[in-house]
């Protein structure tokens, strides 16, 4: 739970762009693993490839018996990986430049300090225990298998033939057996006849490895695989041959897996905060533009109307004026005509009166 909170903080702290390096830059905190966590040191110069560790693991975990018995070393002819019935495998590596015989290496969960599987799991089914083991909780697992995509060591496996209750299967460093007191060391360590495996506190194991380097400088490469790889693991390897020849990738880098995605995850809250404001802004701008456009249109129509009206009025006035003038002249004409007629009538009347006077 603590760890999950920490990872959450890591994610939240990694603000800015989707660049993986920002997560660390944001804080001064650097997780170095639980201080007193346990791990296992594997010494490739001691391993004889007897598969006793495989048998020990199989037995303490009650896993199904394999097709070929554990003392059949013929299975080493083919390179194997962990599967749903096998938490650990030993592989033989031949034809290593400068080495006469074969070198063996045991493979199982490396129990990363900051596990990729735990960071990738969307139900937090994986837990990095303070004791060092990475354990998986069946009661919440959905079976999406993203942990298997994420693991750089290709460790988690899946029960593909279980129709409804498939489990993700992987080494748990015998965490359930050790916490219940059934075992004091993991099954594989207890079964190893050559002390190629040592169980102890991680910091002590690092010291043991360095002591061996000092005591036998020609026997070992001066590198502890797992001290820094993928941010460090609780399972550590030392070897006399380069690690790439015994199936350990040397190009994994030292960045803990959660940091690879924390930058991208940090963008998410930024988008959820910024996008609504931005989009509403764009909407508002468009709405306003539209409103202005409609208003301008209205204005233009109004203006055109007013202009037309004014023009019409002018024409009307002109026509009215003209009509008025015509009317006036018509009246004048009529008046003149009437006056003329009246004058004529008067003249005629006067002439008529003269005649009657003459006639009297």
């Amino acid at each position: 739970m603590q760890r999950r909170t920490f990872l959450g903080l890591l994610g939240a702290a990694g603000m800015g762009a989707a660049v993986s390096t920002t997560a660390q830059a944001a804080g001064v905190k650097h997780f170095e693993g639980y201080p007193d966590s346990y791990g296992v040191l594997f010494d490739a110069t001691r391993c004889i490839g007897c598969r006793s560790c495989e048998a020990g693991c199989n037995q303490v975990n009650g896993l199904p018996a394999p097709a070929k018995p554990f003392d059949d070393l013929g299975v080493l002819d083919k390179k194997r990986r962990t599967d749903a019935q096998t938490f650990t495998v030993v592989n033989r590596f031949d034809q290593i430049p400068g080495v006469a015989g074969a070198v063996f290496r045991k493979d199982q969960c490396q129990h990363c300090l900051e596990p990729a599987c735990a960071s990738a799991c969307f139900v937090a089914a994986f837990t990095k225990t303070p004791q060092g083991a990475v354990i998986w909780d069946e009661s919440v697992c959905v079976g999406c298998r993203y942990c298997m995509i994420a693991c750089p060591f290709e460790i988690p496996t899946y029960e593909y033939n279980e129709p409804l209750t498939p489990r993700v299967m992987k080494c748990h460093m015998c965490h359930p057996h050790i916490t219940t007191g059934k075992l004091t060391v993991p099954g594989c360590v207890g079964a190893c006849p050559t002390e190629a495996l040592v169980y102890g506190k991680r910091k002590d194991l690092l010291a043991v490895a360095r002591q061996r380097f000092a005591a036998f400088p020609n026997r070992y490469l001066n590198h502890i695989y797992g001290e820094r790889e993928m941010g460090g693991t609780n399972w550590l390897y030392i070897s006399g041959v380069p690690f790439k020849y015994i199936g350990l990738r040397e190009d994994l880098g030292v960045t803990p897996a959660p940091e690879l995605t924390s930058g991208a995850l940090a963008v998410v809250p930024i988008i959820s905060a910024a996008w609504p404001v931005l989009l509403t802004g764009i909407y508002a701008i468009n709405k306003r533009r539209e409103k202005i456009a409609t208003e301008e249109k209205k204005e233009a129509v109004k203006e055109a109307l007013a202009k037309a009206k004014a023009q019409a009025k002018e024409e009307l006035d002109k026509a009215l004026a003209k009509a008025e003038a015509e009317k006036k002249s018509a009246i004048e004409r009529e008046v003149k005509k009437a006056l003329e007629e009246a004058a004529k009538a008067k003249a005629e009347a006067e002439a008529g009166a003269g005649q009657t006077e003459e006639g009297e």
Partner: protein
Amino acid sequence: MSTLKTENLKQYLTPFHIVVGIILLLGGFVTILRFTKGLGAVTNLTDNYPWGLWISFDLLCGVALAAGGYTTSAACYVFGLKRFHSAVRPAILTAFLGYALVVFALHYDVGRPWRLPYPFFVQSGPTSVLFEVGLCVFLYLITLFIEWVPAALEWLGIRKPRDIIVKATLALTIFGVVLSTMHQSSLGALFLIAPSKMHPLWYSSFIPLFFFVSSIAAGLSMVIFESTLSHHYLHDKMDETYLKEHDGVTYGFAKGAAMVLVLYFFIKVVGVALDNSWSYLLTGYGAWFLVELLGFVALPAFLYAIAVREKNLTLIRWTAVLTVLGIVLNRFNVSLVAFNWHLPPEMRYFPRWHEFVISIFVVTIGILVFRFIASRMPIFYEHPDFREHEPVELEEHELKPHPQTWGH
């Protein structure tokens, strides 16, 4: 009596129905196999290849190709391109069905499908990119459902809730764009955690941006592609407005897709430059990368631009197909080809026929449901009782199919 029966039977025995029937039968068979014998019996998945065709096609491609929903509604409601209005409903319906089918298909892939809500209701893993994808897809599916509901309510003649939802259109659209930005990009971000397993040409810290930008091109192209198909098969369900706006939508979306593809091309090149992966271009993987980048990004961008300039609808439609294929190719390249490129050939994955059956089965269900809804509900036409503006010409009414018309 018997002649009537055979005629009835003949009526149903169209090639379409026969093919659909076979697909549904096969799908049912594989479904039973999956839930009785497990993934091992129906897939070629291994411990090295935990994700196969169902994730690559049904999830990654499915979500990318359903991007038409948010691109179209954003163009219409947020960016104010109202002339795309008639394209919104078909795009929303496609997106809703697309996402529903993504979730449906996931039930085959995950081990315990009834636990799919666990991340939100039982125990959350917020450090996981998949949690973010899941949450966004979950919320967006609900959003798309609400956006689609008015069509169903108009069909049923229920006005009140329909009016409330229509009033919330802008808020729903913005919510949809936010969620889509996040999960479209996060689908790419899923692979950020595995740099050691990915080919450097496809792995980039900008892969979330690549996925987001390409989803816009995919969404726009899918709208063009689908409207072409719908025109063919659902022409009688389209109203005057839809038909009148259709060519404009096609030109507008083609122009948009051309620009987005150019942007996508440039950021992909910058991605190679930033990681200084130039030397890989001379390898076999590099040749394949160039096929994707030149043949399925640069070429469609160019063809879209030409087609818009020359007003060539046929070329636009074929370019839409090319773009969609390009996005599918990209999702396959990222999740299957570039992923685990370090493994020897005999350990690589190729899907089993059962896996293809389920993917085709899921798409077929999508087409059937789309046809069922689009031939009944007001998708390609405005419901006469629920129009936003009064129709200008009343005689248009005569041409409109009645909502109660039972198609085909």
